[in-house]
């Protein structure tokens, strides 16, 4: 027999109350989605450069804590690595902040990230680098990150109109004229508002105070079939302790965990998620509780005519589940729209993932289940002996 859907009918009966409950869930769902979306986008953007490196193992200085605080180390270590049979090639990477002069507003200087690479091995798998790499051979030429913040000036627009952009870069005491000869795409992150790619020779012309033979990242490309984990172990054991060897995955984790644990950023976002869930639990609990409290005589009557406590328990839990699912759906849709807004405003790669949508759905159901489980305690007050 198909039973009367009491849980749903009761929810539907008090429309205003249902709307308040759903708004609470929608609100919580949006908060959680936004916090997680922005957090993941920030962490993803922090490692976009790492993702784009065509290497299997990497050498860095043990004093380096993250891509914004790289310490140089001797290139000799990288040469030592190249002696191994397993290695296909090695390539040095130079990285440092430079101050970029806004060509339109010439008094405005802003920090961006400069990457110097060996042009013989094209190690950057970033859109726009491969096709422009030959253009970087002449002196004082750079590729400009087309997703840099607009404070650097209308570089993309000027470049597309004129075919080049001329400005200056300052590093330490020296300032150098440079020319943008192409665009590539990396994007902003916690540390970097914009990026430049250039040959390591041009890099050293700008950074003229750097000790000779010192690099920031040593990239190692392994021959096909070589296990990077085993080779990393082998190389780490072979090299002195003045360098650290990572596989690519470890290198990415190293960067992410810096932002996650060495800064308050991860904590702040987790707190946001937590608060969103707490708000949701409180609202849903409040609604379910008043629903039970307001209907105690009717519930007691149901018990008196022969319904078991389980029936009422199920009723409340079903209501919690209905509220969860009905609140989640609009929450998800609004969040997807919000992601687009945030993406436009911040240039961060915020987008909905299947995993996150699933996680938040489960979190919403758990949230409502907790609220429901707390509210059912009130059912004990529905005593059939009290209603005659």
């Amino acid at each position, binding site marked *: *027999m*198909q*039973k*009367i859907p*009491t849980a749903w*009918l*009761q929810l*539907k*009966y*008090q429309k205003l109350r249902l709307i308040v409950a759903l708004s609470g869930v929608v609100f919580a769902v949006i908060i959680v989605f936004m916090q997680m979306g922005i957090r993941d986008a920030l962490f993803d953007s922090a490692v976009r450069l790492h993702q784009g490196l065509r290497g299997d193992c990497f050498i860095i200085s043990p004093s380096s804590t993250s891509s914004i605080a790289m310490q140089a180390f001797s290139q000799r270590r990288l040469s030592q690595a190249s002696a191994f049979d397993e290695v296909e090639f090695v390539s040095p990477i130079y990285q440092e902040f430079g101050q970029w002069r806004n060509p339109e507003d010439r008094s405005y200087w802003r920090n961006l990230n400069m990457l110097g690479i060996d042009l013989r091995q094209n190690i950057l798998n970033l859109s726009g680098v491969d096709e422009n790499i030959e253009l970087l051979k002449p002196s004082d030429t750079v590729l400009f990150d087309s997703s840099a913040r607009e404070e650097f000036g209308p570089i993309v627009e000027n470049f597309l109109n004129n075919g080049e952009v001329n400005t200056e870069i300052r590093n330490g005491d020296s300032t150098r004229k440079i020319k943008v000869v192409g665009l590539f795409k990396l994007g902003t992150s916690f540390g970097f508002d914009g990026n430049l790619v250039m040959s390591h020779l041009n890099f050293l012309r700008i950074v003229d105070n750097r000790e000779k033979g010192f690099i920031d990242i040593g990239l190692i490309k392994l021959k096909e079939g070589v296990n990077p984990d085993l080779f990393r172990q082998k190389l780490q054991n072979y090299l002195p302790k003045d360098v650290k060897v990572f596989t690519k995955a470890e290198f990415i984790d190293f960067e992410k965990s810096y932002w996650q644990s060495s800064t308050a950023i991860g904590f702040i976002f987790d707190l946001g998620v937590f608060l969103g869930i707490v708000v949701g639990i409180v609202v849903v609990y409040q609604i379910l509780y008043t629903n039970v409290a307001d*209907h105690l*005589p*009717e519930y*007691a*009557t*149901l*018990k*008196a*005519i*022969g*319904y*078991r406590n389980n029936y009422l328990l199920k009723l409340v839990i079903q209501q919690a589940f209905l509220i969860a699912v009905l609140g989640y759906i609009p929450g998800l849709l609004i969040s997807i729209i919000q992601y687009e807004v945030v993406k436009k405003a911040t240039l961060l790669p915020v987008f909905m993932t299947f995993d996150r949508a699933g996680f938040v759905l489960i979190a919403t159901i758990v949230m409502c289940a907790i609220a429901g489980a707390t509210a059912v305690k009130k059912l004990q007050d529905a005593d*059939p*002996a009290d*209603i*005659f």
Partner: protein
Amino acid sequence: MKPIISVKNLNHYYGKGNLKKQVLFDINLDIYPGEIVIMTGHSGSGKTTLLSLIGALRSVQDGNLVNCGRELQDTNENGLVDVRRQIGYIFQAHNLLPFLTARQNVQMSIELLDDVLTSEAEERSARMLHKVGLGDHLDYFPQSLSGGQKQRVAIARALVSNPKLILADEPTASLDSATGRKIVNLLQNLTKEQNSAFLLVTHDNRILDIADRIINMDDGRLAKDNQLKTIT
């Protein structure tokens, strides 16, 4: 004939320790199938307490109480629920679920029975509502029914599953006397038609005439039976 309700040496207390207070004293009462029994008595004499004990809504503390062949003093909560399913209750307040229509409220009683088809449940509820005179109010919500109409729905809910025992505690208290009279007559007719035993608590002297037997509760003790009509 075997009684459907058999109460022997029943005592009941409220409170604990120093506050413990006896409200029922050595109650003995048999009720037979098809019999209409009215219980009267002044306020606070223990009528509701006895009714809730007979209805398996309260646990028996001391004495014997047989209801539909079960010894309630030896029955656990689960078993009490089984007994409740065989009884029709009518309360002073109608206690209808506000979010269900008249028919759905009645149907809630049938859904307790196993193996009833949805269509049959709907039909039986509608038929019962016809009997109580609400055939044209099947899809009304309680809030749009009058007090008397709500009490009729409650009666339909109590009687729809053909219980062998019907318990009612001042079902007319919140109704005007004309409406109350109609409700009582309806209850009388339906219980006779279903051959159910009917135990009714009331203060209303004007409705005593429907009783086969009137019993009087006095400070927790049942006074002598007052046989009005002979049981057949």
